[in-house]
């Protein structure tokens, strides 16, 4: 009898500090498996965010940098331009990317930087204790929206993938989910494509992953999955919002 599963070599042996059930852990594994499969461990660079994934550099056994809140895409831009052979990915939460870092992600996409962005949407500021994020659902309770997000007071959630897909220079935008084994396998395919695009020089690639934050949602991991499927997916439908990489490949 043989083991048919293994810890990817692009991860260190360090135990994740994430809470039980946290989506970050799943996406770390998927990303590390992709790095292994594409054989890019020696030239991959992770740009860690501010947020629960701030210690991502402890887990990914690749070169790393941790930047100021939300500035990942700008840092990734600099590294990629200075060292074009490196494979640079910015790993960001929704507070980091869609709140304080909204300008950086929009302009990196608009410039068509040849980088990969992994965007963990858990509809909340996890690290700081559950404040409302731009992605928080209407009606969802947060410490800064104790009665639930109110459309009249706080407006509506931002669908980042749909928004970035409007930009001409963005090449590949997909939203996936980490809630079930089949969806996790699909998520990995999307992440792999987002890295392959960069290797092929095809341009800005962005994968949004719907993830649970049971701790700040005040629930259990299993009930968190129900919330993700019933509520999050209604606001954030899964799918490819843009993919012009096939056309670009032919034109190359």
């Amino acid at each position, binding site marked *: 009898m043989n083991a048919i599963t293994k810890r990817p070599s692009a991860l260190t042996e360090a135990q994740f500090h994430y809470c*039980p059930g946290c989506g970050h852990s799943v996406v770390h594994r998927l990303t590390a498996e992709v790095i292994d499969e594409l054989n890019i461990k020696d030239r991959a660079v992770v740009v860690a965010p501010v947020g629960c994934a701030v210690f991502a550099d402890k887990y990914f056994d690749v070169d790393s940098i941790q930047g100021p809140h939300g500035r990942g895409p700008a840092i990734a831009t600099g590294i990629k331009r200075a060292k074009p052979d490196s494979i640079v990915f910015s790993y960001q939460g929704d507070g980091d990317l869609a709140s304080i870092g909204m300008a950086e992600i929009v302009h990196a996409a608009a410039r068509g930087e040849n980088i990969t962005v992994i965007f963990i949407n858990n509809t909340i500021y996890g690290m700081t204790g559950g404040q409302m994020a731009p992605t928080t659902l209407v009606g969802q309770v947060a410490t800064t929206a104790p009665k639930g997000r109110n459309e009249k007071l706080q407006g509506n959630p931002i669908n980042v993938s749909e928004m970035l897909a409007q930009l001409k220079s963005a090449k590949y935008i997909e939203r996936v989910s980490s809630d*079930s084994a089949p969806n996790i396998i699909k998520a990995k395919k999307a992440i792999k494509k987002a890295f392959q695009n960069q290797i092929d020089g095809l341009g800005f690639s962005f994968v949004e992953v719907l993830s649970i934050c049971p701790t700040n949602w005040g629930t259990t991991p*299993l009930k968190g999955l129900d919330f993700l499927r019933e509520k999050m997916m209604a606001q954030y439908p899964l799918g490819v919002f843009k993919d012009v990489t096939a056309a670009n490949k032919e034109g190359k």
Partner: protein
Amino acid sequence: MPKIEVNEARCKGCQLCTKACPKQCIEMSDTFSTTGYYPARLAKQDCCIGCGMCFQVCPDIAITVFR
């Protein structure tokens, strides 16, 4: 017969694997692990079909599937 092994030191008792298993082969232990969680374990022999679903959902890479 396929089987799984749970690395108790890594398992955080999130229970996601119990729901993901199509054969309901996984249950939670009723004794604490050294890290302070109730870890997952294979509930019955000759149950596992080695599909790997539990591995896919396990956030902490605590499960190894053998086939």
